[in-house]
């Protein structure tokens, strides 16, 4: 009996130690991909928002230049993590990297904008009226301070719309998302209460409302629920013919979201040189205020981890093509085109990317 007990004890201890061994093995080893590389095949990962555009661009690029790009739309945050682990050639993110993320990266990373996206406010009301919102009213609704559609603050802005006394149901994203980030970033700029409350982030502590997964989840819930309001990507609302609100921008104009007004949002005079900037609440008088760049990210110094020069050159060439010739594919797919001024600054940044201290472009 004693021996049997001892035996079980020994078995248990050895099992636990084996398990611990397994655990500790898993953590450290980052699988490194980019050993050398012929420059014929590139790996990118990140943003799901730009996936339709990128897959079109990469398909065309593959046929013209025989360089195959494998793009995995795993989400902006995951794309940044993969780039930091150096498992991919370039990352893609809807939001610029935070200072903390930049500090944690093993090398300097540059941001190259590839297109513009807009977040639109959509709703479900009888008669599908076209609504106008000021930033204050929008923040009030999403903070839960304005609770009914016939609130005088809303009706004053929309005298022509017949607004019912329905309660407002706010619908937001439940999954961490760049769309939420852009929307929250905008509200943080225009509303001090928002900054104090939910703040800026990909997932927030929402004061009111229901969460739904993905653009399709949010729009699905809005389509079903009378009196609901939420935010989705422009392309999604456009393709599903959902009603969208005009938003008052910084210059005081009510701007309806469109590809033109989205592109116009990036057409401002004092753009910082590194383009790592949020353009929500833009100064541009004809710009839609909830617009944002989407970026590809790459290391400024490309000669890391035995990377071959061919691989580095191929990466930079691809990105240069994306912001120039590739731009013709953005508007047909409902993405905002980069204004000339931005393309110029992006090329300047791309020229600072080096391999063994030698520029690649």
């Amino acid at each position: 009996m004693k021996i049997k007990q001892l035996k079980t004890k020994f078995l248990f201890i050895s099992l636990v130690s084996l398990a611990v061994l397994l655990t500790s093995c898993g953590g450290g080893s980052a699988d490194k991909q980019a050993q050398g590389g012929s420059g014929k095949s590139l790996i990118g990962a990140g943003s799901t928002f730009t996936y339709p555009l990128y897959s079109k661009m990469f398909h065309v690029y593959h046929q013209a230049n025989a360089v195959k790009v494998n793009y995995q739309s795993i989400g902006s945050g995951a794309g940044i993590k993969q780039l930091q682990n150096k498992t991919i050639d370039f990352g893609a993110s809807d939001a610029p990297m935070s200072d903390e993320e930049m500090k944690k990266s093993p090398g300097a990373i540059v941001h190259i904008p590839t297109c513009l996206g807009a977040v639109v406010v959509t709703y479900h009301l009888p008669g599908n009226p076209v609504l106008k919102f000021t930033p204050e009213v929008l923040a009030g609704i999403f903070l839960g301070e304005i609770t009914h559609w016939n609130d005088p603050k809303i009706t004053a802005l929309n005298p022509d719309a017949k607004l019912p006394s329905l309660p407002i149901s706010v619908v937001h994203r439940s999954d961490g998302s760049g769309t939420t980030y852009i929307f929250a970033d905008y509200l943080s700029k225009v509303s001090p209460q928002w900054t104090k409350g939910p703040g800026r982030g990909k997932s927030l502590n929402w004061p009111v409302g229901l969460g739904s997964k993905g653009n399709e989840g949010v729009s699905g819930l809005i389509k079903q629920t009378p009196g609901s309001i939420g935010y989705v990507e422009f392309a999604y609302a456009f393709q599903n013919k959902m009603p969208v609100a005009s938003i008052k921008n910084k210059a005081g104009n009510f701007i309806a979201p469109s590809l033109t007004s989205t592109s116009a949002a990036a057409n401002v005079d004092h753009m910082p040189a590194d383009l790592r900037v949020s353009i929500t609440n833009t100064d541009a008088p004809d710009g839609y205020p909830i617009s944002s760049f989407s970026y590809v990210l790459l290391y400024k110094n490309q000669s890391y981890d035995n990377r071959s020069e061919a691989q580095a050159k191929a990466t930079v060439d691809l990105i240069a093509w994306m912001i120039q010739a590739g731009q013709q594919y953005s508007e047909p797919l409902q993405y905002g085109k980069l204004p000339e001024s931005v393309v110029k600054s992006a090329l300047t940044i791309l020229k600072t990317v080096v391999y063994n201290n030698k520029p690649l472009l």
Partner: protein
Amino acid sequence: MQSNHHISLTHVRPFGFKERGFKRSLLLIALLVIVLLIAIFFTLVVGSLPTIKAFGFSFAYNRTWDPVAGQFGALPFLAGTLLISFLALVISTPFSLAVALFLGEYYKRGVISGIFKNIIDLLAAIPSVIYGFWGLFVMVPVVRVLEMKMGILPYGVGIFSASVILAVMIMPYAISLSRQVIQLVPEELKEAAYSLGATRYEVITKIIIPHTMSGLFAGILLSLGRALGETMAVTMLIGNTVAIPTGIFAPGNTMASVIANEFTEATGKLYTSALIEMGLLLFIVVTIINMIGRKVIRHLSFDEYKDVKK
């Protein structure tokens, strides 16, 4: 044919090596599963160290979940998970028991029974995202009409919708186990009861159910385990509001769905760690419930022996 013969002949004689080798490989595979489980546990513990250090036990009872401010508490998710799982159990148990009795006692064989069994197995094979979509586009509008008639805020999604869909999803697990234990009730027992003049209803309530109590409970426990971890369908229907549910129609959130929703875009050490600790907490909750369940099952089967001895 001939070679078959050959193998069986050589197989019998040298008793030692093959037999022992077979037994050892079985043991090895079984141990591997246990090692894997322990390894998962340790991975979760290691991954959640930053939040364990930062919040300690308050993680389990704090009700704020604010990724922007870096405040993490799991109570709303814990409450949501337990609430929808037990509600789903309450809804599904009468149905699964009834179906199990129907298939295990009334229609054991035959065409009808075959069709039923196949359909129930099929229920288990439907991907949960399909349940979620069906729930969102078919069931939620119905629930919304119901809510409007009752004068509650017509969200449609919420604890109730999630529990109903979950009840449908977990039913097959309870049914297939319960049906099998009901079929295993010895014929002699039932015949003895009939010979004493018992009706079928009496046989079911006095013989079959008491005799199979522990098995029926095990089926329910199995389905509960499934309910606790279900993610996709639940997250589509629960409303994903981080608050302790105020009522049966209120929106809520669960541990599994917050992990699925927020993990890919979680940035920062503390945030990721908080989600991993959520996984650890779910692991612990499932383990505790299973342990209690095992206790109950043992207790039930012990009672049965006592009855037999009397």
